[in-house]
């Protein structure tokens, strides 16, 4: 790997890490989900600055070129991230469903309470009407 490429990759990794850091700082990305992205950036930086590690790993697994090792690792990370996201989506779906159900049931309850309230009002009004023939005092003071 040429020195220039090494420098470019290093800069790219650092900028990416800073960008992710900023996303977390401004609350646009949840720290919990940022961890895996930090891991990707950091690993890229390590492999870039110390190519020996990647070379060693490549030899260990019997892969011909270090770049293939890098692709392999990248692919593994992407799969991991997608899986994490599917878990998160399932979780969100479950929560949205619960909230939807809860809202619907509360609506029903409010409607029931409202109609009961109206019924009560009607009864009170009918009692208050003088032609019903019942004396009814509102706000009557205690004797």
């Amino acid at each position, binding site marked *: 790997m040429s020195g220039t490429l090494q420098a470019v990759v290093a800069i790219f990794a650092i900028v990416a890490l800073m960008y992710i850091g900023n996303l977390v700082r401004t609350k646009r990305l949840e720290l919990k989900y940022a961890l895996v992205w930090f891991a990707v950036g950091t690993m890229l930086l390590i492999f870039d600055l110390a190519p020996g590690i990647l070379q060693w790993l490549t030899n260990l697994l019997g892969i011909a070129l270090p770049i293939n090792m890098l692709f392999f690792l990248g692919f593994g990370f992407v799969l991991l991230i997608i899986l994490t996201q599917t878990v998160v989506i399932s979780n969100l779906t479950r929560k*949205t*469903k619960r909230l*939807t*159900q809860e*809202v*619907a*049931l509360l*609506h*029903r309850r409010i409607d*029931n309470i409202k109609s009961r309230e109206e019924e009560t009002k009607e009864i009170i009004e009918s009692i208050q009407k003088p032609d019903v023939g019942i004396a009814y005092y509102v706000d009557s003071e205690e004797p």
Partner: protein
Amino acid sequence: MQRRNRLVIIPAFNEAGCIVDTIEDIRQNAPSFDYVVINDCSRDDTGELCEKYHYNVVNLPINSGIGAAVQTGYMYAKRYGYEYAIQVDGDGQHDASFLEEMADIMEDSDINMLIGSRFIKKEGFQSSNLRRLGIKYFTFLIKVLTGKVVTDPTSGMRMVDREVIKIFADDYPKDYPEPETAVSIIKRGLKIKEIPVRMKERQAGVSSISFKRSIYYMIKVSLACVMAAFGVK
């Protein structure tokens, strides 16, 4: 609204064609039951019809699917302390006159779930050959997984008691719940029994299981049954 201890859950998605008939049928033929319509954000007049006739309707603000709609019914049943609950589809495929009979059987026994089976007496609408083959397969699968025979594991006519209401309110499959929940109920050591019923052919609407989706149905429900057999939480 007067409260009884038996509840009919009617999930409705675009059922304007027969929702009124379904409810009137229940009112006449199952007078000891309360009912609740769960309107799953229908795009037709289902909601308006329910408002017009002052039906007891719960309107889901977002279309959430049949599983979520039915579960909302079980949540309702749990919250208002109902003893027995049964799901009746809004398409008028079930016969409300069986409801009283089923509830009476449940009251007189310690059964947790009572399934109305089309295939004990083989009366009424019997479904197509291919579908019956699918149903037989699930009977076989459930037998393998639990050792119990359920002749009509896809029957939507299932009455459950308070204990199962609680379970369903907490956890209910997203779609095609029947075989899967049967497995999980048996695996929890609760009692299932079947009685013969007669079902009508649907009055309006289309079956949720079109031919295209049947592949998905077979795979999804098979997997779900296996998961339910091994994963009682």
